């Protein structure tokens, strides 16, 4: 059955999620000194400390604490932030939407760029244009993302003034304003991913072009572009989907520097602040969300792979 392999993976990934969360819980052991004292301060009364210890279940063994937290989490209660007293779930939800949207925007831009350039390069296989595209991709890969972000700000915002250097605009403030406030950060992220996608596409498409069925299609009179788009592209999406899956997972929590540079209220900045402030519930909540996204996306990619390439059934996706 095609899906048993998938189900096995799904099961394993669930175990992984459990372990990740347990690990996060274990982080509390790393906190030097008494956690309750750290939160309330030394001047807190003994009753207040006892109360907080009870709430945080600090006296109980790690596993019990974990299960308690997990139980609450399943009901949507991720605790409150030690910094502001806000419910963690609410905080994360607000920021998650921003990060998620940024990730979609960036991946979309990257895909469009990569597709356009790779189709262009492949249509002129072997010419200087093809080699130039590859070289540019290599160059782009070699620029660190944070430098890219900085220079984008320098050129497009400070020098040319085409886009806002900072400041996140909500949807309610206007569609154009919202999208343009996210454009530079999305572009910064996209320019980092795009060359990777390009190289994958270009290599795969190059390989596929040499296959016999392409010659057959050409012989039948299908135009060059028709061949490219209909016959070459689809098989080439294999590795691409895998890589996108990997990227998406960690983009949601990891675009810290871009968020800092552009002052976006995203998850990355929330996370850094939480770790610095030792806001344990918030950190745990964020890890849960990020790990969950990563795992769900991976499972989706696996399923997509099976749908697109039924001939691969029974064989586990080579990762």
């Amino acid at each position, binding site marked *: 059955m095609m899906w048993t392999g998938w189900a096995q993976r799904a099961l394993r990934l669930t175990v992984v999620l459990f372990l990740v969360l347990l690990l996060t819980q274990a982080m509390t052991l790393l906190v030097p000194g008494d956690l309750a004292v750290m939160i309330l301060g030394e001047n807190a009364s003994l009753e207040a400390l006892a109360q907080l210890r009870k709430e945080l279940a600090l006296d109980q063994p790690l596993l019990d604490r974990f299960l308690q937290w997990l139980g609450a989490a399943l009901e949507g209660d991720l605790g409150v932030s030690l910094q502001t007293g806000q419910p963690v779930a609410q905080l994360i939800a607000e920021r998650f939407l921003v990060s998620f949207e940024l990730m979609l925007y960036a991946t979309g831009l990257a895909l469009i760029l990569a597709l356009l350039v790779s189709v262009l390069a492949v249509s002129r296989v072997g010419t200087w244009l093809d080699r130039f595209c590859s070289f540019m991709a*290599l160059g782009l890969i070699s620029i660190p993302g944070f430098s890219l972000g900085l220079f984008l700000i320098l050129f497009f915002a400070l020098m040319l003034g085409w886009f806002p250097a900072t400041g996140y605009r909500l949807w309610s403030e206007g569609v154009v304003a919202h999208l343009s406030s996210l454009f530079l950060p999305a572009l910064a992220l996209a320019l980092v991913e795009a060359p990777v996608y390009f190289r994958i596409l270009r290599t795969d498409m190059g390989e596929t072009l040499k296959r016999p069925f392409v010659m057959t299609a050409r012989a039948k009179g299908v135009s060059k572009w028709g061949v490219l788009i209909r016959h070459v592209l689809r098989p080439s999406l294999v590795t691409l989907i895998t890589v996108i899956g990997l990227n998406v997972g960690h983009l949601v929590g990891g675009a810290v520097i871009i968020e800092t540079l552009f002052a976006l209220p995203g998850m990355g900045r929330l996370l850094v602040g939480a770790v610095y402030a030792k806001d344990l519930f918030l950190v745990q909540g964020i890890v849960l969300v990020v790990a969950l996204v990563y795992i769900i996306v991976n499972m989706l990619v696996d399923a997509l792979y099976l749908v697109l390439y039924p001939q691969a059934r029974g064989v586990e996706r080579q*990762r």
Partner: protein
Amino acid sequence: MRVLHYLALIWLVLLASLTFSAPWLPLASFEEMDFFNEAQFPNESNWLGTDGMGRDMLSRVVHGAQVSLAVAIASPLIGLLVGGGLGLLAGYFRGWLEQLALVIMDTMLAFPALIFALLAVTYLGPSLVNVILVMGVLSIPAFARVVRGQVLLIVNLEYVTAAKALGVNHSQILMRHVIPNIFPAVASFFLTVMATMVVAEGALGFLGLSVPPPQPSWGSMIAEGREYLEDAPHISVIPSMAIFLTLLSLNLIKEKQET
């Protein structure tokens, strides 16, 4: 293209030699501040200019290279030895060992890298050794995956199954057949990881989590140059160029090696 490959090699060799000989070179001090000479563009007395606190950029780039190179070499080694070993065993022996290894790898991959790095540096304290350890640990699952993938390709080949049937013991098979065959792909991946390490250390430095002052690092230099972006962009551009050239060289060499 060949010219480029040679240039790449030259850059890397130059970088490495400058890094190792730094203490003996006639460079200016990398920590001496000169508030009346801040943010100067490259000139006769400071060949690469000065940063926001008047410190010599050339000296800081060279000393910063020490950190970048140390991380670029040592961290992937950790990943290779631990992760590669894990992947080797998983791919060769299969069965429950492989399942266990996959679970461990997936867990490490699902745990957000940034959180791990932040936590580790926050609790262990920022130092070169800790940064190398953290980066090394983070590269373990990637190496495990790649090595396992390569091993899976090799293990079904005829001469390997033949060797097994003949009763040749495992370590001999691994040493004589498996490892030499996976070597090219793994070496290529090693170069990729080296490049990633340079950027990752830069990112940590940008966030202030890398080696603490007064030791310069390329990432923290870029971060410090942010506020001078409009008036003295060289403070951010020069370390960015250093990272760029290093990455480009590594990537070019990797390309050469793959063909």
